């Protein structure tokens, strides 16, 4: 047991602060939680693999394509694949695009800063000019609205960045599942440790983005921009997708005059850690797309867990969402622990105080989240 000589916090969520300080996790460490988290992350890993490949394909090979009818085909268009696509026998790549666009909209982090810099503008303009050299309509559009294609390139840059981020996370989650199958992962803290280790190992992976046009490479985000995995993509991703999110359309009527949606985007609380799983399955709920994809790759042991519930698998997508939310609290735990200013088991009083303040800042953000709801097995 790690001793914490510092006085306990008086924060309403002090219980969780103490848990994190003692090496425990936001999600209770139970066998049921372990099965759900590992199972859902395995499924998520498979889905992310498909998502990141498509995001990278769109960023690199559908660069400013005027009519990207086959952007979800990853370059392999055939009649059979087209029929399967029309039958919707495919992943919902639209969700990946939704995440990338949400990141673009919220911004923040190094990628956002770079995309507003003159260096990016110059690099992007070169690529744009090369792309639209022989395209009269796009040339006219670019002259008329010079910021439009630039913004499209920014969007594609986020596609690439998110694709690179998910490439790392997909591998991490699939490795986690393999270790669980081998009996090497037997508790929630071990899951968190695995994820944290993956984040730390990938922290300095450079984030770059280039396109090849007429056999010439255009570096839109060069290595010299100094963007790396953890601070410039992972942290903004967590902020955007886990915390801020976007209001779901079609379920609640928002009164703009009453500021029912905060004019301050930093105060949004629609992300994965806050979202109510019950509306999943309905229209206007983007995560429904993710849940629909994940249901195709659930391991059998997770199916058995779901079949034991009162409605069996009739409400599968809601159950998947609840498991997914639990897993995201595990990932968040990993992020919190990984980004702590000092090791959480430090004995230095000053460092302990800094850690406590750091954790209380996080807990402030969890006040309206579903942290309490996921405590129930």
């Amino acid at each position, binding site marked *: 047991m790690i001793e914490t000589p510092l006085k306990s916090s008086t924060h309403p969520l002090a219980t969780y602060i103490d848990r994190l300080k003692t090496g425990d996790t936001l999600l209770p460490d139970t066998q049921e939680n372990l099965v759900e988290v590992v199972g859902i992350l395995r499924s998520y890993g498979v889905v992310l693999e498909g998502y990141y490949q498509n995001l990278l394909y769109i960023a690199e090979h559908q660069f400013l394509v005027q009519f990207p009818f086959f952007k979800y085909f990853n370059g392999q268009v055939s009649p059979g694949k087209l029929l399967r696509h029309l039958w919707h026998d495919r992943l919902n790549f639209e969700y990946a695009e939704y995440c990338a666009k949400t990141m673009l909209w919220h911004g923040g982090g190094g990628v956002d800063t770079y995309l507003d810099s003159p260096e990016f503008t110059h690099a992007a303009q070169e690529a744009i000019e090369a792309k639209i050299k022989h395209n009269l309509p796009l040339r006219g559009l670019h002259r008329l609205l010079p910021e439009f294609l630039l913004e499209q390139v920014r969007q594609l840059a986020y596609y690439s960045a998110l694709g690179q981020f998910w490439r790392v996370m997909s591998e991490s989650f699939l490795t986690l599942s393999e270790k669980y199958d081998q009996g090497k992962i037997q508790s929630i803290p071990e899951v968190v440790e695995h994820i944290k280790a993956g984040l730390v190992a990938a922290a300095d992976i450079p984030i770059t983005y280039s396109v090849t046009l007429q056999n010439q490479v255009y570096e839109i985000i060069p290595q010299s921009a100094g963007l790396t995995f953890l601070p410039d993509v992972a942290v903004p991703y967590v902020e955007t997708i886990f915390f801020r999110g976007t209001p779901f359309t079609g*379920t609640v009527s928002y009164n703009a005059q009453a500021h029912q949606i905060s004019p301050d985007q930093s105060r949004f609380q629609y992300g994965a850690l806050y979202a*109510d799983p*019950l*509306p*999943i*399955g*309905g229209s206007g709920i983007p995560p429904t797309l993710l849940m629909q994809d994940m249901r195709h790759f659930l391991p059998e042991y997770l199916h058995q867990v779901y079949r034991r519930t*009162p*409605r*069996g698998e*009739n*409400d*599968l*997508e*809601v159950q998947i969402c609840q498991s997914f939310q639990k897993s995201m609290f595990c990932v968040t735990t990993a992020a919190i622990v990984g980004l702590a200013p000092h090791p959480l088991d430090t004995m230095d009083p000053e460092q302990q105080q800094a850690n406590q303040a750091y954790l209380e800042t996080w807990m402030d953000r969890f006040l309206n989240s579903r942290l309490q709801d996921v405590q129930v097995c």
Partner: protein
Amino acid sequence: MLSTLILILVSGAALIGVLPGLSAARSRQLALVTAGIALLWTVVLASQFDPSMTELQLQESLPWIESLGLTYKLGVDGLSLPLLALNSLLGGIAIWSSDDSIHRPRLYYPLILLINTGVAGAFLAQNLLLFFLFYELELIPLYLLIAIWGGARRGYAATKFLVYTAVSDLSILAGFLGVVWLSGSSSFDYQPLLAQSLPSGQQFLLLGALLVGFGIKIPLVPFHTWLPDAHVEASTPVSALLAGVLLKLGTYGIVRFGLGMFPEAWSVLAPWLAIWAVISVLYGSFNAIAQTDMKKMVAYSSIGHMGYVLLAASAATPLSLLASVIQMVSHGLISATLFLLVGIIYEKSGTRDVTRLRGLLNPERGLPLVGTLMILGVMASAGVPGMVGFISEFLVFLGSFSVFPVQTLLCMVGTGLTAVYFLLLSNRVFFGRLSEQALNLPPVLWSDRAPAIVLAALIVMLGLQPRWIVRWSESTVSTLVPTQAAITQTSSIAIHSKFLNSSSNDRDPSEILNPSPSNIH
């Protein structure tokens, strides 16, 4: 052929009651087979029916108790055939919707089949006493169905139903006896009685007795108070049968016997009947708005919608009489659908309270298909185009407007109010976040949904192709239109003038009918 239908139903009921060692499941299966055969036989009857003929078809006649003037005489025409089909369909659906594990099944299913028998016999009877016997036949079975298998206050509701229906029966019997006695006829046969003539005073008296009797059955305000209690306490299948078929006995009786036998008296009373219809429509609608129990809301909606039948019957134009038949069928299908769906919601969630239910359209944890069918049903009830409710209500208004414009306009307000209360119901119960009450609803089986799906399909099909139902009644209703032009705009406008504009009392009726520009204010 017509007797075969009655025989099928009675035999089925007898077999279930008599055969030894029948389990609950077997009883249900036998009842379903009986209802299925009855439905098929009804289709056979329909195939033998010629819609272009105006007189009775497939007639059967057997002397029975001649000293009482009672003859076993059956016949079918365009007024009774659609209702016969509705009875056969809803009888089967009521049996299908019954719980597998219902207690005392060997009493339950025969009672339902006896109700079907009584209703079928009443629609087919061409002898007043025979009609009364069949009409009376459903009284005790329905009382028992509510009293034994009903809800917490079933005793009260069943007794109330019994008392009201007994008074209705007495009133109708008095009317029938009066017709025969005062006309000096020796038989209760319907067709010969049509040829009898009675002084207008006697006609008013007898028509009044029938209006009270059938008015209780329909029910019309203020004779309606038994219906909400009966619906709330009755089980779902019984509610569906009650609303879908049994109430049509009242409207059928009013058209067949009230309008049919006393056209002169009907013509004079018609403006008042139209006003009565307005009162019923608006009263039912306003009360429905105030309800928090879904079943009670649908019950009051029934009261309102049956008022449209009275409006159409009072106008007594060929179009409005056709509309009255269509409205009976339409209301039967729609109200049965709504009661079945409310029953599913109650069974799964444990409540019918609109203040406690929310978000049932949730696609994963809610009742999305039931919710969708419910929204379709309430839209049909509100007269949204594309469904049979629109056809029937539109025809009612179109057929009645030329005779009673004010009353028709007021009844149209009722259609708007229908949208109000059913939108309130839909918005509260089906939209929004799933309520805590409904977080873990048991799944709905396809066998639960099937009856409502069948009825919903019919509602849509007949809404898109109304000819499939209109064609059966078009010829017959033309014979029901009063032969003398007793219902004139003069009489109706005179009534309106008296209550709306006292200064016009002295105006020349022709001036009212054909106002010159100087008369138009």
